[in-house]
């Protein structure tokens, strides 16, 4: 028998936004009614209803901690970004002069320092998202998403403005790439680190091939950072197409890691083992009438 499948995007939204495995029976109920002939509009209406109800319920229960988590995360990020740029500023000074003698000890030390800067930024990002998801534990993925949006929000008007420029203007295209790439990189790094903090155990559940691809993504990301810093001090040739390729590899690798961590867990569909069965019927038969 062919079962009529409900609209996938709506189910996807339910699975991600409505959150927990507790919603499985509800999603099943909607699928059952859709299979029995309910319309697509009805399914979407119910989906929006579930998401709306869940949102209102969450805000009522956890609105304060949600806002506190996002604000604390933004404040901490601004603080460490300021400190980091202050502390590592000398490494990025006089780069044109350094690139004239790229293989001196001083230049190589700069590469090491820049690498240290990248690692410290990664650690501080992790500490920040850890704080965010600890302040608001109830909806960790939702608070992580909003935190990332809050971080990236200020850059969006600039991106939109550049996008609205005529595509023929090469300067706008270059400026757009130089704005989008760091934004995209910071977004995927923050998301991937946040998801790692939330679901580190997922790594153990991955099969061998996925684990290898994940490790490869991380190794590539480190390698790209080293190449990028070596280019900055002139130790490696520096050309725009190479930058774009390196950035694309970096974003794709970390984005893939984010995807692996974001995917819903393949939980057992029936939960009889999770909850003790009730004694049926608790009431005498007559009481149900």
């Amino acid at each position: 028998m062919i079962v009529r499948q409900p609209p996938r995007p709506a189910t996807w939204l339910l699975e991600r936004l409505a959150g927990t495995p507790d919603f499985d029976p509800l999603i099943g109920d909607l699928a059952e009614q859709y299979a029995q002939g309910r319309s697509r509009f009805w399914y979407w209406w119910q989906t929006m209803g579930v998401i709306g109800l869940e949102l209102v319920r969450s805000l009522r229960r956890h609105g304060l901690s949600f806002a506190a988590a996002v604000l604390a995360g933004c404040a901490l990020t601004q603080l460490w970004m300021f400190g980091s740029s202050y502390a590592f500023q000398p490494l990025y000074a006089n780069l044109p002069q350094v690139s004239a003698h790229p293989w001196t000890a001083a230049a190589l030390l700069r590469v090491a320092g820049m690498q240290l800067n990248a690692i410290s930024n990664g650690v501080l990002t992790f500490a920040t998202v850890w704080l965010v998801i600890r302040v608001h534990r109830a909806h960790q993925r939702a608070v992580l998403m909003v935190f990332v949006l809050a971080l990236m929000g200020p850059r969006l008007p600039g991106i939109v403005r550049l996008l609205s420029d005529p595509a023929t203007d090469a300067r706008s295209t270059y400026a757009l790439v130089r704005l989008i790439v760091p934004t995209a990189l910071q977004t995927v790094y923050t998301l991937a680190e946040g998801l790692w903090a939330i679901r580190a155990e997922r790594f153990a559940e991955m099969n061998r091939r996925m684990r290898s691809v994940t490790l490869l993504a991380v190794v590539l990301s480190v390698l790209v950072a080293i190449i990028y810093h070596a280019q900055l001090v002139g130790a490696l040739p520096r050309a725009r197409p190479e930058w774009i390729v390196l950035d694309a590899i970096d974003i794709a690798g970390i984005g893939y890691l984010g995807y692996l961590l974001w995917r819903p867990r393949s939980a057992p569909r029936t939960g009889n083992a999770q909850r003790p069965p009730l004694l049926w019927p608790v009431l005498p038969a007559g009481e149900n009438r």
Partner: protein
Amino acid sequence: MNRTREFVGQHELMVMLAVLRLGREAYGVPIAAEIAAKTGREMLQGSVYATLERLETKGLVASRLGEATAQRGGRAKRYFKLTAEGVRQVREAQRALEALWVRWPQSEGTKS
């Protein structure tokens, strides 16, 4: 347990009565259908679940997961039943409503 007593709301009462009427077959779909059939009001499925979860938190309803079917995309049904406290609350609500309802038709007809 010493708790401040709360009245069950209209939605809660309707859902509890639907669960009682359906007996062992009380899961989301028939509960919503029963309410729609008997009241003419279609509740959002999410609203039915929100009410049931609230009732479960209050200890008036209990649930267990049942079988999964292909029609449901392999997802389990969640069956609900009233606890003894739930049944007591329904009866209490019925008594209170009946007491408040007494002579309603006469007063409505004679006072105008």
